């Protein structure tokens, strides 16, 4: 579904992405793992077209994304730090997104808005929101259009345990519908019952892309967190 071929990106002298080639297929839930500054977010942003790679290309369903912007209607993106027009209320932001993406899907998936009780906060302005509420808005927007691909950058960072459990449940239900889910997180214990594949990045390079069972047998660990810890200590 998403194929990245030899994607490289440099910010000044720093090589953020170095010849990254990945093939993500439908129905998988892929965890992007790596130390801070290993290029995870930059990779996600290049899939979304927010960062333009210096070399290499990315295709979505066989179409090169540099010449085609419509593919983004199949993606729901939850950024690491959700940045929204500060003067708008939650309701206005949601209405605006509905208005802009109208036509891509008929019905709206408002499960998360209801589960997070956002309907009571609709009048609140974005600048007054706490980090956690902002994350809830980001998550609700990512799932709102029931896209085929969900890209979640640190989805549970800043969420309280109840809300992060709600979000996890939602991810699992979407996964069962056969959607491609790309997720980055540092809280590995959370990923345990979610992911089917692991992409491990370090210093902008792709270290490996394996299914979770292989990772577990390779390292001889039962828990994902331990398995990753033992891999990370090697790099």
């Amino acid at each position: 579904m998403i194929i990245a071929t030899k994607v490289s990106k440099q910010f000044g002298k720093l090589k953020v992405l170095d010849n990254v080639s990945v093939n993500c297929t439908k129905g998988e839930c892929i965890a992007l793992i790596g130390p801070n500054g290993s290029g995870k977010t930059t990779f996600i942003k290049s899939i979304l077209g927010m960062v333009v790679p210096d070399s290499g290309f990315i295709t979505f369903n066989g179409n090169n994304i540099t010449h085609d912007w419509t593919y983004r209607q199949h993606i729901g993106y939850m950024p690491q730090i959700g940045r929204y027009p500060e003067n708008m209320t939650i309701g206005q932001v949601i209405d605006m997104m509905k208005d802009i993406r109208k036509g891509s899907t008929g019905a709206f998936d408002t499960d998360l808005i209801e589960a997070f009780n956002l309907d009571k906060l609709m009048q609140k302005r974005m600048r007054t929101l706490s980090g956690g509420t902002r994350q809830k808005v980001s998550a609700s927007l990512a799932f709102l259009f029931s896209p085929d691909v969900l890209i979640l950058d640190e989805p549970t960072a800043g969420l309280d345990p109840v809300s992060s459990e709600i979000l996890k449940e939602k991810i699992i239900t979407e996964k069962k519908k056969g959607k491609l889910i790309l997720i980055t997180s540092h809280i590995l214990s959370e990923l345990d019952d979610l992911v089917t594949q692991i992409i491990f990045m370090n210093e902008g390079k792709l270290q490996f892309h394996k299914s979770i069972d292989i990772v577990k047998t390779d390292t001889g660990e039962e828990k994902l967190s331990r398995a990753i810890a033992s891999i990370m200590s090697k790099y």
Partner: protein
Amino acid sequence: MQKILKYVIADILRNRIVIAYTAFLLLISFAIFNLEDNPDKGLLSLLNIILFIVPLISIIFSTIYFYNSSEFIELMVSQPIKRKTIWLSLFSGLAVSMGVAFFVGAGIPILIYQANTAGLLMIVAGVLLTIIFIAIALLSAVITRDKAKGIGIAILLWLYFSVIFDGLVLFLLFQFEDYPLEKVMVGISAFNPIDLSRILVLLQLDVSALMGYTGAVFKDFFGTVAGIGISLLVLVLWIVVPVFLSLRRFKHKDL
């Protein structure tokens, strides 16, 4: 395009700065026309104030607006929308709201007191200047990432077009005073939209008779319909070129 434009304009109007700017222009225009008993002289005073204020407000407001809407831009870029649409909506939103602000604030008083060629030309020049400086502001803002630096550059650009450029031209004139520079001056004025607008409007007024030989040469060029047409075309180029360059830059910008 219209959808995003709608949100940009709604956001700018909520800002209230544009409304304050309109009120300020209205106040100045009516004050000047009521203080001067000769509307021709009133137009001249208003011209000088407008050529000073309009570029300043347009360039600074647009720069700050661009940096303040970085969140909005970021949000839009991750949605199924062309970058070109986002950029042109942002530009048109600024151009429409600031253009209307100028028209209401200065255009209507001019139409009331001085509805002749000079007045009309001044309204056209004012609207064009507004859009030109929005285009320049967006170009400089899209190149510089840092907000403080971007606003600094905007102020410097304004200073250049309204003060430094004239200084350089004067310097040039004194250095080469032995040569006939009158015709060259017509060409040089094309490099500064503020000067071009000033000459354009000034030559419609009687005061141009006081400008000596240069005034006569200017009158020969800017006084004709062809001259006015060419000048307006140059002003339009001052919009098209920065918008084109900034669009090209924005298409490849990392957000």
